[in-house]
């Protein structure tokens, strides 16, 4: 009986902790490379125009406004923010604040805006390896977050997306150069310990 009540108590405590953890979880803003919000890593698609999709996840509320900024790597040059509401102040690289006339449905992943960019990289080679696109607080206000239907400002977290992640990097090279990497005696070769 005593063991049973202890077990029940433990289970309740775990459930309570989980609930607290869930409620304390902040929504996140992230940059995706596809409109269905599945890819947060990509190889360089080649020099030319492209689109990034900024989305918010985990609001569990209607969303009346968002504010953030994007830190863009050398692989990407910002061109324009599109699909933004009429009430928009600033740009994504310098800090953007958007107020929505019709609140966004934050009960599922929701697109906040799209960013038209120019890919500067032709392929995944230095200096484009592990290039990070980070959602950061707006440098104008220091705020990264959103507002609910009572226009209360609430914080969010920004995620990192990767261009040319090192794990899957495809770098043009030769077998000779690869061998040189493991041969300390070869002039110009690198040593790895």
């Amino acid at each position, binding site marked *: 009986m005593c063991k049973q009540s202890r077990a029940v108590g433990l289970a309740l405590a775990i459930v309570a902790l989980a609930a607290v953890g869930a409620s304390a979880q902040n929504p996140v803003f992230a940059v995706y490379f596809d409109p269905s919000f599945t890819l947060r890593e990509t190889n360089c698609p080649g020099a030319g125009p492209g689109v990034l999709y900024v989305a918010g996840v985990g609001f569990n509320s209607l969303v*009346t*406004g*968002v*504010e953030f900024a994007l830190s863009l790597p050398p692989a990407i040059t910002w061109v324009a923010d599109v699909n933004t*509401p*009429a*009430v*928009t*102040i*600033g740009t994504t690289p310098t800090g953007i*604040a*958007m*107020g*929505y*006339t019709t*609140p966004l449905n934050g009960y599922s992943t929701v697109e906040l805006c799209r960013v038209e960019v120019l890919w500067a990289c032709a392929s995944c080679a230095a200096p484009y390896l592990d290039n990070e696109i980070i959602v950061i607080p707006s440098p*104008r*206000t220091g*705020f990264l*977050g*959103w*507002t609910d239907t009572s*226009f*209360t*400002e609430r914080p969010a977290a920004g995620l990192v997306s990767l261009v040319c992640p090192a794990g899957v990097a495809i770098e043009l090279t030769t077998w000779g150069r690869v061998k040189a990497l493991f041969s300390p005696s070869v002039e110009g070769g690198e040593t790895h310990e």
Partner: protein
Amino acid sequence: MSKSIILVSCFILLAGTASAGIIDPCRSSVVFNGSAPAYYFACPRGETRTFSSRGFSFSMRIVDWQGNPIAFIPKQDFWVIDCDPVRNLYLCGGSASSSADSSTNYAGRTTMSNTALAAGGCANGLSVVCQGYLLGPGVPSPCTPVCVDVRVRSTDLNRDGYVNLSDVSVIAGYYPPALYNECGDLDWDGKVSLSDVSRLGAHFGHQCR
């Protein structure tokens, strides 16, 4: 001699009759119910909260030059205007931007609490008007209109009766790192921030009816 006395008496009687029913703005009174400063957010369409839901109201008593209460003054004959020497409001429809709760009763009394002010602009003070007369504290001297510290903010920042891109430009000019401007602080939290932009977004496209 008796003729002149009769004439003077007639004159006084006529004058008294003529002034009956004409508002005496000095002895008529308005009382503010609430704590100052009070805060009020307005939209040109008038789709915001009422005065009472923001925690304040006005009580008016209207008397004529003889001190008699004036009954049945229509509720539409009451409205508020700003009394801010620096800033001012754009009242949608002028006197139609607000109204009393009901016509004056036999005691000349009515209240203003259930109205939602339809306005643009920004002001730090409101006075109550009845039939064009600014209402005072209810004492003949000093006869100065009552100006209450009600801080009104509106998404129609440029006072043109329409919440549109012009207003976005205005609030963008108040947004950090620009210097703080209280007219862009639509929720009185001491900063122009996302919550103010969100409010503007929610009322975007609204205009005076």
